[in-house]
């Protein structure tokens, strides 16, 4: 299978993508509250998925354009869904970690109810 430089590059990209996804999963377990977990989840899945897509594109060059489109959709939708989740969580008063040092949003909402 790994006989050409392109195949090797594809395999390496897939491993790198999987590694970032693993780190994201670890982040989900270790982070103290919902907001920090979303942070770990969003960034790791975006880069991990993009790297995996790039890896597949190296292994199957014919699929390149489709994979590029999938990557674009992920780049646009992933942060939006995270942002909406975070906003919904904040609005419904999800408990924040005791480490939290400041919350300007709650302050401002307290000022103008």
């Amino acid at each position, binding site marked *: 299978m790994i006989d050409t430089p392109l195949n090797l590059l594809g395999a390496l990209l897939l491993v790198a993508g999987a590694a*970032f996804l693993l*780190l*994201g999963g*670890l*982040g989900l377990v*270790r*982070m*103290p*509250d919902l*907001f*920090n977990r*979303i*942070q*770990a989840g*969003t*960034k*790791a899945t*975006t*880069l991990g998925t993009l790297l995996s897509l790039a890896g597949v594109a190296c292994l199957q060059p014919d699929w390149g*354009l*489709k994979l590029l*489109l999938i990557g674009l959709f992920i*780049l*646009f939708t*992933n*942060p*939006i869904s*995270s*942002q909406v989740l*975070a*906003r919904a969580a*904040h609005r419904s008063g999800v408990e*924040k*970690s005791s*480490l*939290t*040092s*400041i*919350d*300007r*949003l*709650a302050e*401002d909402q307290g000022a103008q109810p």
Partner: protein
Amino acid sequence: MAKARASVLLFATLLGFWLLLNGSLATDVLVIGVIAALVITLLFRDSLAVVSEFRATPHALITAPSYVFYFLKELVRSNLRLASIVLSPALPLRPGIVKVRTRLKSRMGRLLLANSITLTPGTLTVELDGEWLYVHWVTVESEDVDAATADIVNGFERYLEVMYG
């Protein structure tokens, strides 16, 4: 006139996506694509702000690729930093929600800014309110509005200001 231009752009973009995803120019594929793109264009005429609000000036066209490059660089940095936090036994966090201000006026510029912030080192946009953005930060470094804006917003704003204003 601007509306007609936006509709044509939306139609062309939709049809382009359809053809790329299908990877074929057969008659039936083409006909279905044209019908679907037409219906969607009629229903959502004002919805393709990514393209229609883009300022097609030469300066903006040069800026767009450097924005993409800067963004990808920040995305990788963001992941490496997150990895170092997650892997360190002490879990060095100082989370908080700070308030920052943007100079961008257009809807699309603000959306891209919010998305970019979410995908870059330790920050997550929680709420948008006009020119104010509330950003969750894993390691709060500056609680002051201006200092936080300089840290979080300015890097992207430089590019987006040229592209969308």
